[in-house]
């Protein structure tokens, strides 16, 4: 067991727990977009930063990737953390304003303005889908390509992957495209992030008795009308 200080509270936790797990266990919620139980920690969205240490040596670390250590001093909502979190949310809003999750988070953290040039992107590169595909579905059908602002998600050379079983796990975990999957226009109704996924309802004959993975997508319903 490890003794540490969490927001001024002396706590005792099991060895090997991440700060995020500790904080959630003790009821200090930390927002995160790229973390999901069952998937390996990734540290991409940076929303879950917490302040570790004291005085001038204090620094921000991502709580999802950092393990709790003996004597650690952690603050989950210090000024420095809140400032960083609000800026990250502002950046997220500037890129993916249509995501319900991001909107809710922004409102929860009282982000009232967005001062950057507005973009409308579909992906925040959190990597949840990639890890879902690799770690839970054992498929490795999609991955990241390129670097910097050209980084994108998809299959190599945009060729449909033979590994993809159209399980839909990637869409299930996506924090950005939620809204899109309940869209009212059939060809825009699904993610379209990679070459793998086409709306199954378009090929309904071939998938006659297959359960549709797009629930709650209504693309086929729209088409039928």
């Amino acid at each position: 067991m490890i003794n540490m200080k969490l927001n001024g509270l002396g706590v005792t936790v099991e060895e090997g727990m991440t700060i995020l797990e500790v904080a959630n266990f003790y009821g200090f919620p930390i927002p995160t977009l790229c973390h999901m139980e069952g998937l390996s920690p990734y540290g991409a969205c940076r929303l879950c930063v917490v302040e570790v240490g004291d005085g001038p040596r204090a620094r921000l670390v991502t709580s999802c990737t950092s393990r709790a250590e003996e004597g650690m001093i952690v603050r989950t909502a210090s000024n420095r953390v809140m400032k960083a979190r609000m800026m990250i949310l502002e950046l997220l809003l500037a890129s993916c304003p249509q995501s319900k999750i991001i909107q809710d988070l922004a409102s929860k953290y009282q982000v009232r303005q967005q001062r950057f040039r507005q973009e409308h992107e579909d992906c925040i590169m959190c990597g949840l889908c990639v890890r879902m595909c690799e770690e839970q579905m054992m498929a490795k059908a999609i991955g990241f390509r390129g670097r910097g602002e050209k980084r994108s998600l998809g299959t190599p050379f945009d060729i449909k992957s033979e590994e993809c079983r159209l399980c839909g796990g990637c869409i299930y975990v996506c924090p950005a495209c939620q809204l899109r999957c309940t869209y009212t226009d059939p060809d825009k109704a699904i993610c379209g992030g990679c070459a793998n996924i086409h709306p199954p309802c378009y090929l309904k004959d071939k998938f006659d008795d297959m359960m549709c993975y797009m629930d709650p997508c209504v693309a086929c319903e729209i088409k039928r009308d």
Partner: protein
Amino acid sequence: MKRLISLDEFIDFRRRIMAEKEIQYDKPTLVICAGTGGQASGSNDIIRIIKKYILDKGLQDKLGFRITGCQGFCEMDPFILVQPGRHLYTKLKMEDVPRVIEAALGGFVAEELLYKEPRTLKACQSQNDIPFFQKQTRTILGDNEKLDPIRILDYMEQGGYAALEKALKRNNSEWIVNEVLKSGLRGRGGAGFPTGKKWQLARASGKDGEQKYVVCNADEGDPGAYMDRSLLEGNPHAIIEGMLIAGMAIGADQGFIYVRSEYPLAIKHTLIALRQARDLGILGKNILGSGRDFNIDIVRGAGAFVCGEETALIKSVEGLMGEPRQRPPYPIEKGIGGHPTCINNVETLANIPVIISRGAEEFAKVGVPGNTGTKIFSLVGKIRNTGLVEVPLGIKISDVVYDIGGGPVGNAKIKAVQTGGPSGGCIPASMFDLPIDYDSLVKAGSIMGSGGMIVMDENTCMVDIAKYFMKFLKDESCGKCFTCRKGTQRMYEILDDITKGKGTLEQLDLLEELALVVKDTTMCGLGQSAPNPVLSTLRYFREEYIEHIVNKRCPAGVCKELVGAPCQSACPLGTEAWRYVAYIARGDYDEAYRVIREANPFPSVCARVCNHPCEEKCRAGTGGGQAVSIRALKRFVTDRAEPSSYIPIRHLRANEESPKVAIVGAGPAGLTAAHYLSLQGYRVTVFDAERKAGGMMFSAIPAYRLPREIIEKEIEALIDENITVKYNCALGKDFTVDGLFSEGYKAVFLALGAHRSIPLKIDGENSEGVYPSIQFLRSFNVFGKKLGKGAVGVIGGGNSAVDAARVALRQEDVTGVTIFYRRTRHEMPAFEEEIEAAEQEGIQLETLTTPTKILTNSGRLTGLQCQRNILGEPDASGRRRPIPIPGSEFIVPLDTLIVAISEGSDIDCLGVAGKMKIEVDERSSTVKVDSETLCTNRPGVFAGGDLVTGPNTIVDAIAAGKRVAVMIDRYVRGVELKQPASVRMPKIYVPPVEVDEETAADLRVETPRAAVPWRKRGFAEVEMSLTVREAKREACRCLRCDLDFTRPKETAKPERMEVEVK
């Protein structure tokens, strides 16, 4: 080569090689640098010629020849170093080679090809005499010139692998680690983590017998940095030796050299070196019978900047996408394949053999405590000597920039240096006293980084630099963590907006806020240091950002959308220089004159005495060539036109009374304001204390530079029926500001000029024969009195001093003229062409001299006691401070002494004491105004020209007059004075002319001057006009920066082959 199987055999082998070295060195040897830099400059051609020459003449036994890696002096490539004697022949061409070889064989020196000190043009006999090398401590880099990188025996001759021998003999890994720890070596990759500490941790890490790795990080990606490449290219065995020792120290048996594919020569040399080491038995299984294994493989990186980050590098070595991961765990705990991995920079590893073979204490003697040893920097940018320099840590930045680097290339002063590549920061010239060590640089907001050092001068825009680095980083960020990917992109967006004039002050705050969050929240070193270029430029050059945002001006003349044509934006009057130059090229001189005259009421005056800021910013000059001679072209045009031929457009006032405006001072500022106000329909009265109009133009500038009839003609053309000039009317004596207002004047413009010389403040200044320069010049120019007699001395280095000296020389009773200046000629603020002309006329320059005492005999000057100076450290302006040498006093007998150190205005009558209640700055004797509106503290009273700025140029005075005319008009009409800044962009399209053989020229035209004996006799003008042919040729040299903005949009279809249709 026979494989050596025991340590004894190796020791024996090394000893034999070292002994043979002595025999080889009795013949002259040519050493040529053939690193990547050398090859790019053409050393391969030189090598071919040398080889052919040696073979043709059968000189194989008489002449040694060594091809080495980079030696550091890249500016002078290709060069040959001749041993013995270390004569350095630089910037060689193929045809110079035979001469060099003959000199080497004949034992003489080919003077004409030797390196010459650029300022004194003195040839340096030996490499050791060259200032570039003198202040360096080339512990590591110095070996590069001594060995051929693809010959292992060369390395051993220089004592190579001695450290390995020592380490194997001891066979104690703890001893190695302790030795490195004691040496105080810190990682040369940039962060400066103690290498010994890292090895200690790596040694202790992992289970017993667990696989461990040593990695040499040669993924050098900083723009402008290439020291790692040069080490791998020039001395790969040193790196191999370092890695072998590292392997022994931490217990690893496998090493990787991670080098980028862009370094083919480094890869080639390293591969050859690895094979040689394997063949000799010092690499591979059971090294020299010690029972230890160590193998090294090369991993080629695909050139992603982020792969220099250690966790990303590990991923890349593993064959995965080069993405960092969160540390801890650190690579020394979990590295390649989860095994402990010790990653060191190339330069760190190159230091290891030095530490082991010479001992830690010896190593720690270099540098300063906490920052021991030497560091290699690649010195690039706007500096005279670019190249690789190796200096002890703790040396001052100014030593590197000014002594080793040789200072700026052109006239522009050095403004800042950027250290540490894209993740580093800019350090301003005012902080050049800073010692170069890891901790000081971090405190200053920069980092050591891998050692790139980019020097920037006044023609570099700091916002543009920050934007450049941000673009690099946004492209090179791996994109994994959100704040780095989006943060760099957004910072780039904001910087881009600012450089395009679309930025706002709110955006500037946002930029800073964002930069701090990015620094705080990103995952790896790349992201954490990515905001450094922004933060450090914001910290030291915020005013440049504000200038871009508020005034829509780029002071360096770089940002295209704000500058338009640099010549136009540099001109205080906004003269469309590009436009009249284009008209001159087309032969349309009338139109050219109209363009000049529209912006400037004194074109002929400016054509002679302007300090031509346009030429300083001319892209033909800042790009490395020579600026277009814009002033000479202006002179050419104005000589062809009468000032009265231009009819300005008048604004007519219908049915309203013309308001009255008073202007005090009929100099360039006053007359310009009078002219433009008159065009607006004002009735202007100009008061002047002299009996003639012209102000400083008339009383201070001598006739040989500016003929009197030119001033008179131009003034005559300006004074129209709206302007009345009252001469012999002095402010304070004959009238007051209050009086003017009560007489019904709506506004007053004070443009009194700077007519009072500032005294030297040493004893004897009031003696007979000592004159302030203004008094001396004025007595002659206005009253024709010749005050100079016998031996004349002038104290000062500005234009006023040179003018006074040249005027004195033209007076009959003068026997000789000497100028005393406290710095060197290079630092003199006077125009270069004026100093040159003065020297031609026989005026002596006594530089590095400070007057200490004026010697008198019964109230009459007899001489001057002076003290010699040496130049010390450069001050914030980049000029070196003069430091007096004690005991160096000497006496110069003089009959006349002219003091010309600076000028001020006669402000006594203006201040509170003079009862005009105008705020003045007593110290600089100037009037305080709002810099934008030129308004004084009294409403309706404006001031401009030298009265506000202190002694300044004519063109600035004219600009002030122009501005005041606008402000007075707005004031009288009751409109808000401040206007939003606007950008002056080229608008009118002048079609370019075809440049043919006759008009093509690379070099700037020289302004013709009258012959020296003739001009010394009188006051006839010295500078002459260009001929038509010269003018056309010079005008054709213009790069036409305006065309980017004015060229009509291509509407015509692209040219196609005509096909006949039947």
